[in-house]
C-alpha cells in the first residue's frame, strides 16, 4: 500500500476530488516554513480573476511600507461611474469617502470591484506588476482593471448575461484565456502568500506593522464556501481570496493551525458545466486543499 502522503497518492486523491465535482483543477500547496509542497499543474498559467486582488493589496501595503503612499489617505467615491459588481461600493448607491486601506478591506472582504479599481487607479497596473516582479513573481501579470476585465466579458458575450452560460460563448471569452487577461500560476500565487506571511513584502522600519495589518486584511473575506469549507475547525485560521468567472472558481489563501503549522494554498478550477451556481465545485476547492495540507502535515 502506498503511503497516503506520497506525492503520487496525494495527486491522485486531489484529482479524484476535482473529477467528482465535475471540474478540472490546478493546485499548489506549500508549507510556509519548510517549503515542502504538493502541486498539480502548478506552473501552468491561469486566469486569476479576482484572486489578482491579492497582488493589488500586497502592492498597496508594500508601497505604504516604502513610504510612497499613506494608507489613511481618503478617496472621494462618486455615486456615478463605479465598476460593476454585486457587493460593497459596487452595489451601493451614494457618494462616499474612504481611506485606501478601507478600500483594501472591502476588496478582500466582499471582493468589491469598485474598491479594487479605485486602488488599481491609484497605484497603476504597472506598479502592481513591477511589485510582483520585484518579489520574483515574473509570470504574475495584471493586464487590466476589474472594469476592463468585465468589459471584455460584455463584448464577447454580446451584452446578454444569459449568453455567459452558453458553452459556445464561454469557449471564446478572452477573460478565460490567460494570455489575454490577468494571469499567474498556482506556484507564484502561493509564493506571494508565503512572502506575505514571512514578512517579505513590507520592507522598512515599520515593515512589521504593515505586514501584520496586511495579513489582518487578508483574513477578512466574508465567504467560506470554498477554501474555508475544507477546514471546518474552530481553532484553524483561514485567510483567503476567491476569484470567479464563467466556469472558473478559484481561491488562494493561508491555513494556520494552532500548533504553528501554516500553509499557503492556491486552487484554480474550471468546470465543465457553465451553470453559475455549483456548490459542489465550490466545496471541492476546500476538499482538495485539505488533502494537500493534511499530506504536508502528515
Amino acid at each position, binding site marked *: 500500500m502506498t503511503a*497516503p*502522503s506520497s506525492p503520487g*497518492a496525494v495527486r491522485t*486523491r486531489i484529482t479524484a476530488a476535482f473529477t467528482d465535482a465535475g471540474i478540472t483543477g490546478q493546485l499548489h500547496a506549500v508549507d510556509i516554513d519548510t517549503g515542502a509542497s504538493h502541486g498539480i499543474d502548478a506552473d501552468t498559467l491561469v486566469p486569476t480573476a479576482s484572486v489578482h486582488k491579492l497582488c493589488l493589496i500586497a502592492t498597496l501595503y508594500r508601497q505604504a511600507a516604502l513610504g510612497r503612499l499613506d494608507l489613511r489617505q481618503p478617496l472621494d467615491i462618486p455615486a456615478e461611474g463605479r465598476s460593476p459588481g454585486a457587493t460593497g461600493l459596487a452595489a451601493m448607491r451614494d457618494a462616499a469617502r474612504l481611506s485606501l486601506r478601507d478600500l483594501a478591506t472591502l476588496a478582500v*472582504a466582499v471582493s468589491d470591484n469598485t474598491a479594487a479599481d479605485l486602488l488599481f487607479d491609484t497605484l497603476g497596473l504597472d506598479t502592481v506588476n513591477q511589485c510582483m516582479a520585484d518579489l520574483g513573481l515574473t509570470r504574475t501579470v495584471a493586464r487590466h482593471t476589474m472594469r476592463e476585465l468585465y468589459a471584455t466579458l460584455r463584448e464577447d458575450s454580446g451584452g446578454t448575461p444569459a449568453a455567459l452560460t452558453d458553452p459556445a460563448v464561454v469557449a471564446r471569452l478572452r477573460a478565460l484565456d490567460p494570455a489575454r487577461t490577468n494571469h499567474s500560476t498556482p506556484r507564484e500565487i502561493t509564493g506571494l502568500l508565503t512572502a506575505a506571511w514571512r514578512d517579505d513584502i513590507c520592507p522598512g522600519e515599520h515593515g512589521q506593522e504593515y505586514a501584520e495589518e496586511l495579513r489582518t486584511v487578508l483574513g*477578512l*473575506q*466574508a*465567504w*467560506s464556501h470554498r477554501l*474555508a469549507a475544507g477546514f*471546518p*475547525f*474552530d*481553532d*484553524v*485560521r*483561514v485567510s483567503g481570496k476567491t476569484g470567479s468567472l464563467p466556469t472558473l472558481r478559484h481561491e488562494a489563501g493561508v491555513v494556520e493551525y*494552532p500548533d504553528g503549522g501554516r500553509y499557503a494554498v492556491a486552487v484554480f478550477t474550471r468546470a465543465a458545466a457553465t451553470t453559475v451556481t455549483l456548490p459542489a465545485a465550490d466545496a471541492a476547492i476546500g476538499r482538495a486543499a*485539505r*488533502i494537500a495540507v*493534511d499530506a504536508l*502535515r*502528515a
Partner: protein
Amino acid sequence: MCRHARQRNRHHHGRSKTHIAIKAIAEHLSLLVMDLLLHLRYFRTVAEEEHFGRAAERLRMAQPSLSQRIQRLERELGVRLLDRSSRGATLTPAGRLVLTEAEHLLTAADRLTAAVARVHKGEAGTLRAAVPPRLGGAAVGALLIAFRERSPGGDLDLRELPTARQAAELTAGTLDAGIVRHPCPAPGLTFGPVLHQPLGVLLATTDPLASLPEIPTAALTGRDLVLFPRAEAPALHDETLTACARHGCTPADVLEATGPDFVHGLVLSGGAAALVPHSPPEPGTVWRPLRGNPVTWRTSAAWPQGRDGPAVRLFADTAHETLRTHAGMLTAPSTRMVFPRPASEFPL
C-alpha cells in the same frame, strides 16, 4: 360528576358549615381548572391545525361541539383567540399569548398526571435514569453499584437511551436524570460538569498499525472507519468525523455499525478500523488509543431545569465520579483556541 359531588356534600352534612363551604368551593374550583385544561387542549389542537374541521377530526369529536367549547373558552377569558374564515382559523395576538401560556400549563399538568400514576404504581421512590449507548460495561456496572451503596433503599431504574431520546424524556417528565453525550439539545435541561471520553481504534491484530502503542490519527487517512450510525446522533457523528479531519484523517469510507458484534466483524474482515471508546478487546482485535487523545466524546449528567432533588444530585455526582474512574474519562483538556471567521457573523 355533579350528582356525585352533591352526594358527597350530603354525606358530610353533619360537619361544620364552614367545612362544607370550603369543600364546595374547592370542588367547584377543581372543576373549573379541569375544564380549563380540557378547553386549552381543544384550543391548542385548533391552533395547530389552523382549521376547526381538521382539529375536530383529530380530537374525534363533532365540529359544532368543538366550536362551542372554543367559544366558551373565549367567553371565560374575555378575549377573542381565533380569527375564523372559510379557509380556517388563525391565532389572534391574544390567542398567541394564551397558546404560549397554555403550553406551560399543559406540560405541568402532564407531569402531574405522570407523577400521580407513579404513586399509584408504587414507584415514587424510584429514580428513573438513563445512560447513552457505548458508555462501556465497566462504567455502567460501577455506576449501579456506587449508586446502590450511597443510596440504601433508593431504587434506580436505569435504561440505555440515545441522547436525543433522553432529552425528550427529561423534558416530558418520564426521566429524572441521564448521562448524555454532547451535542445535546439544551432547552429546559441543566448539565453537570463535562467529561471527555477519549476514542481509540479497534484494529485487527494482523493490521500493520496494531504494532504501535498509540495511533497517529493521520495514519487512518484513506482507511474505512467504523462508527455508530449517523441517524442515532447526527451532530455527534459529524463532530467525531470533523475531529478526525482536524487531525489529518479523511477516511475512504465510513461504515455504520450499532452492536459490538458487527463492529468486531467489520474490523476482523480486514482494513476497517473502528472508532470506539476503550473497551476490552475481543479475540483477533486490539484497541489502541489515538496519540494525544484528539477525538473525544463530551459527556455529562443532565436533568430537567430546577429539578435537582437529592436523588438526582446523588446520581449526577456518582456518575461524574464513576465515569472518571471506570470509563477513563478526562476533565476538560486544555482550552481550545477559537478563531471566529467573518462568516460566523458575531464578534468574539
